[in-house]
């Protein structure tokens, strides 16, 4: 009987330990998953431990309700090089890259950053080689991990949620590509490299197939234009990335180029290539912008602060596209 008593005591203690550890690890993993969301959705001042613990319940529910994430997975690849990893790419890693479903940093050399080594030389003249190799690498190793594939530079700032929103009305099984559309050189237009562009899964397949078959070649150093030509050859359609009011989402320059009011004037040099008629001043740009370019370290964090942190309390935004907004009315 004593043996039985000791055994049941031991079992009790084991039970306590097991119960404690399993619940602890469960809560730990919940917290990690939802911390990302909580950081986004809970205003700074209520970010205390107690509220964090309770709010995971609400956030988990919200995650289930907004199931956009699963069928609109975005793989982001950043075109960079050893020279810029610390001065530029690092800040992208600390800010917007976290929101991609998958990120790859493409460089000439493999490192612990981590970067993928593309076995291509550095330099402006090799940008298109790097791009070709990057898509081939993605096609070979990561095609099943996403529906959409974004290429960005190491001085591009991207709002991934807004990219998701733009893409939500398109089918990734179709051959499509989106970005800031330029008119010259390619009949159907091509997408600006600096502003970032997105290829559907089908578009990536066709791009890679084009190089295999010889339909696409490295005929030029100018990466965005040359890729645009290949897209046209492979019958990949350029899609419109503008918002419901016809305002641009992808931008090849920083915000001050577009948003500042101007007197009526002929198109400035940086708007010469535009496929769609551009507007200067406040109507240039969507509220839900996808990208800006020529954004360096301090500006990456500044834009992150403006987009995800600083806000006017209680403000009823003017632009409220109807589709899928969870709650526009006051609670």
């Amino acid at each position, binding site marked *: 009987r004593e043996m039985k008593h000791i055994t049941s005591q031991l079992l009790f203690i084991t039970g306590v330990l097991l119960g*404690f550890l399993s619940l602890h690890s469960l809560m730990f993993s919940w917290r990690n998953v939802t911390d990302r969301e909580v950081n986004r959705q809970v205003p*700074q*001042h209520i970010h205390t431990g*107690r509220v964090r613990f309770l709010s995971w319940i609400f956030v988990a529910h919200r995650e289930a309700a907004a199931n956009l994430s699963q069928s609109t997975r975005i793989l982001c690849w950043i075109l960079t090089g050893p020279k810029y990893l610390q001065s530029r790419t690092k800040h992208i890693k600390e800010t917007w890259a976290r929101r991609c479903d998958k990120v790859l940093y493409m460089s000439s050399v493999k490192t612990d950053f981590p970067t993928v080594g593309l076995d291509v030389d550095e330099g402006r003249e090799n940008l298109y080689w790097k791009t070709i190799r990057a898509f081939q690498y993605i096609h070979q190793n990561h095609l099943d991990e996403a529906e959409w594939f974004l290429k960005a530079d190491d001085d591009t700032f991207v709002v991934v949620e807004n990219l998701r929103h733009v893409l939500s009305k398109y089918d990734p099984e179709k051959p499509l590509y989106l970005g800031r559309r330029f008119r010259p050189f390619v009949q159907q237009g091509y997408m600006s490299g600096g502003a970032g562009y997105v290829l559907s899964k089908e578009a990536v397949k066709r791009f890679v197939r084009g190089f295999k078959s010889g339909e696409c070649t490295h005929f030029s150093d100018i990466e965005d234009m040359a890729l645009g030509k290949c897209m046209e050859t492979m019958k990949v359609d350029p899609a419109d990335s503008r918002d419901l009011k016809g305002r641009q989402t992808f931008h090849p320059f920083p915000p001050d180029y577009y948003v500042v009011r101007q007197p009526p004037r002929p198109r400035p040099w940086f708007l010469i290539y535009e496929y769609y008629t551009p507007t200067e001043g406040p109507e240039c740009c969507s509220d839900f912008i996808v990208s800006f370019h020529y954004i360096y370290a301090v500006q990456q*964090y500044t834009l992150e602060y403006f987009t995800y942190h600083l806000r006017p309390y*209680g403000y009823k935004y003017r632009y409220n596209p109807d589709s899928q907004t969870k709650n526009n009315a*006051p*609670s």
Partner: protein
Amino acid sequence: MLAEGSSFMKGMLLGGLFCLVLSLLGSFSPSFESNTTEDHHHHHHVKAASKDELKRLTDTQMDELSQQVRVYCVIMVQPKVLVYWATAKDTWSKHCDQAVFYTSESSKALDAVNLSEKDDWTRLRKALKHAYDNAGELRWFFLARPTTFAIIENLKYLILTKDPSEPFYIGHAMKSGELDYVEYESGIVLSYEALKRLVHVFQDEDKCPERGRALWKLSEEKQLAICLKFTGVFAENGEDSQGKGLFNSKSVESLISDSLSNNPTNVVEGCCSDMAVTFSGMSPNQMQVMMFGVYRLRPYGHDFHDSLIFHPPEGSDND
């Protein structure tokens, strides 16, 4: 066998409960620490209400507060800062319930209340007196120069639960010797009661002389603090519920740059409050970009259930 099984189950249950309790208790301690460090500050602090506090208010109380919390903006301009004047007029001042520009001399380009006064302190006195006389129903006053950018909604959030018939003098509180004063460049907030006492003490040439007291001219911000002090009104630092300052005399970029040097692993969190009220030191173009950044740029799908609604101003296209 069954007895042992039930022992184990009881054990697991107890272990799990113990873990939950510990976790809840554990998360109480961070807020505890921040309370004690505050007591060593020499400034007075005015904090924004927490979300919990606001949730406890009834709808009627909320309605009353939103009526009370309207702001009269006193913007001190001069023709020599015409571009800033025009920018303030076209950007943040549109969100004041009433924005009145007070100028030192008239300008053909823009309209303002012409005080015809070159002396900065005298002019400020005149402007504040005019504002007090023309306040109408408004009970809060925000004093700034057009080189400052203000987010009035966040100012309202800060003063939401404060009673304007109490004296409040809020902003970025600074110390000069024995004097606590609010920095002009990051904006000055006065409740109706504070302004009332101030306008009253303006008549006292001993306590609050019109042409300034010292041999060397004291800055307006310090003169203001001295006069208010005589009426029993003291400078208070405006902060969010985490203790982060809401009034900034630097630009966002400048503060981010500082944060990048000081907290490279946590740049944005270590920089500025989500509910910041003012920034300064930006060019007019940067202020236009700020207008876009504050009132429009945001990620799709992020909704905040704020306790109040502030509507966009009529006839404005950049917010």
